[in-house]
């Protein structure tokens, strides 16, 4: 009886072909890391669902957005949970999309017959990055408004149409209502609809053309026919093949679930991303983008001013062009990483570079900033009264806006407890009054009285005896 109903149901709702061609099809054996795609799909699902529920509270207008986010987080029952999941799944989406991209570069997943799958994937990547960016702009705290301004300034650098692009994105000659509704529409309608549609298409292509199987990575493959033979043999073989459901799905599902679990744990422990003060363009602010963009922020900070404006335009376009052209440029006959040292070097370089840059942004040693307090004196050190006065003047004259002392403070200029070239008092005085050309330091000739100069120098000389390692890195 039950079996009859089941047959009827599967027939009338057309489930039988899905089972035959999708669920119970044979595929080559899968490794755990191939679950990154499932993880992305799961994250997308969670983002769409949590996003829908957040949209029910969120108010896309510059005077009420911030309050609505606070209401959601602080007052609405379990609102923090929804926003936390959205925040962490969004962040993990950025991580997993990079993982997916780098893994496919490693195994040459863009080679025939996967070029179409790859190119759709590149569009998906762009969409994910766009939403990862707008997502935290909509929070409308200080970080948000400056993130928006940063992107507008990037557009400004585009030759000829820079100003038009800025006006187009902000929806008018100034930031306003239009800016908000545009960003909101892109984040919740344009991008998600395209993402869902194209992710479905991407999956269809994965089912149709398969993935890069292990068998393909063992030998050179010269023609699509050869690839098809190897792939078919692998999926049909007892040893190298498996049934998609439940064998593959158990593998890939495990990874997806682990990634989701990470988001869940982070939501329950760390909670949703912190809210800075409400967006404004008046107060002093130390905005810092979301952690997944820190590497790029550091990269930009390292640019010399000659190349900075061109870089903002050329770099993203170059990366995009490289991704689009990759399947057509890499004509090597090997797949997998063992025979492709260049791909391995590239991926390791990217990962190490990004981690290094992320840490650099965390420390931001290039940022000078006015400090309220004079530099601390290390424990056990007694300053003479002149040097002690110099220590306070050190802050009055903004020396510690750039110079750390014994690791405490911004590190734009040299740490004064660690100057390689020790100077005499006279040399120091001359240096402070008139820094050598090309040294980014203000001269104090006209505005530091003689006695102040003596005290500051006295302190600097004393600071050179401070232990350096203490308090290192703020």
């Amino acid at each position, binding site marked *: 009886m039950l079996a009859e109903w089941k047959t009827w149901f599967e027939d009338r709702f057309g489930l039988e072909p899905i089972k035959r061609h999708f669920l119970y099809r044979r595929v080559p054996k899968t490794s755990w890391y191939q679950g990154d795609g499932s993880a992305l799909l799961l994250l997308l699902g969670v983002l769409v669902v949590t996003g829908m529920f957040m949209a029910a509270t969120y108010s896309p207008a510059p005077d009420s957005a911030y309050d609505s986010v606070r209401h959601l987080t602080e007052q609405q029952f379990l609102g923090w949970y929804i926003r936390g999941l959205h925040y962490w799944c969004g962040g993990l989406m950025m991580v997993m999309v990079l993982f997916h991209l780098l893994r496919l570069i490693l195994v040459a997943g863009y080679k025939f017959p996967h070029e179409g799958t790859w190119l759709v994937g590149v569009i998906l990547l762009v969409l994910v990055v766009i939403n990862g960016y707008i997502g935290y702009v909509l929070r409308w705290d200080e970080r948000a408004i400056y993130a928006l301004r940063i992107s507008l300034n990037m557009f400004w650098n585009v030759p000829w149409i820079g100003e038009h692009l800025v006006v187009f994105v902000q929806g008018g000659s*100034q930031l306003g209502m239009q800016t908000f509704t545009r960003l909101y529409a892109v984040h919740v309608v344009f991008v998600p609809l395209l993402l869902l549609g194209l992710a479905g298409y991407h999956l269809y292509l994965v089912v149709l053309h398969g993935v890069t199987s292990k068998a393909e990575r063992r030998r050179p493959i010269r023609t699509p026919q050869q690839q098809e033979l190897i792939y078919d043999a692998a999926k049909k073989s007892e040893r190298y093949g498996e049934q998609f459901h439940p064998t593959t799905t158990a593998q890939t599902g495990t990874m997806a679930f682990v990634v989701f679990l990470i988001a869940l744990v982070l939501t329950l422990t760390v909670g949703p991303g912190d809210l800075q003060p409400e967006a404004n363009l008046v107060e002093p602010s130390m905005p810092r983008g979301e952690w997944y963009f820190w590497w790029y922020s550091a990269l930009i900070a390292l640019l010399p001013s000659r190349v900075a404006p061109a870089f903002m335009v050329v770099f993203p376009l170059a990366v995009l062009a490289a991704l689009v052209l990759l399947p057509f440029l890499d004509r090597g006959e090997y797949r997998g990483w063992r025979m492709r040292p260049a791909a391995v070097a590239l991926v390791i370089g990217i990962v190490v570079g990004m981690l290094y840059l992320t840490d650099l942004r965390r420390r931001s040693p290039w940022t000078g900033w006015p400090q309220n307090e004079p530099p601390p004196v290390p424990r056990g050190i007694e300053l003479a009264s002149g040097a002690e006065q110099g220590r306070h003047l050190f802050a009055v004259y903004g020396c510690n806006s750039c110079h750390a002392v014994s690791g405490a403070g911004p590190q734009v200029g040299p740490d004064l407890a660690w100057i390689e070239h020790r100077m005499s008092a006279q040399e120091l005085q001359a240096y402070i009054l008139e820094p050598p050309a090309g040294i980014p330091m203000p001269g104090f000739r006209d505005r530091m009285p003689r006695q102040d100069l003596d005290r500051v120098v006295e302190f600097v000389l004393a600071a050179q005896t401070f232990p350096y390692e203490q308090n290192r890195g703020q």
Partner: protein
Amino acid sequence: MRQKTVEAQFLHRRQALRWIVGGIGLASVGSVLAPAVASLLSPVYRHRRLPDWRAVGPIDEFAVGGMHKAVVNLDDDPRLRTVAARGVYVWRRQDGEVVVYSRACTDLGCPVRWDPGSEWFFCPCHGGIFDKEGRPVAGPPPRPLYRYHTRIRDGLLQVDVHSVPPMA
């Protein structure tokens, strides 16, 4: 012979039909999408940088020689409060010239902060540093700080908010 002509005619007709279906389909899509995109682009056509003078404050409030923080209101609509109020720096030079700097770093627009000690502006984001004249001295900024056009009317310092780029 006759058979062939019929077949050719049929093929021809099918080809024509394919064109018609495709054409009408595309035209329908275009008739929706093209105006929608044009409408979305409309702020670009409307954009004019005509002078728009806004008050910064009574000129006497800014002592000669000092660098002062001030706020310019770009729009009185309360719904725009988070975006309409702009912090600026006003510097009345000894020679009488009034300089009003935008706080937007010329690198990527982060808010520069004046340090009265070193008399430099510091950007909090990517290491841009500017001197009192607004010249970049360190970091990636390629241009001097944006200066608003200024004028004094009835003792009020005014700036043309459109004299700096639209995102500054």
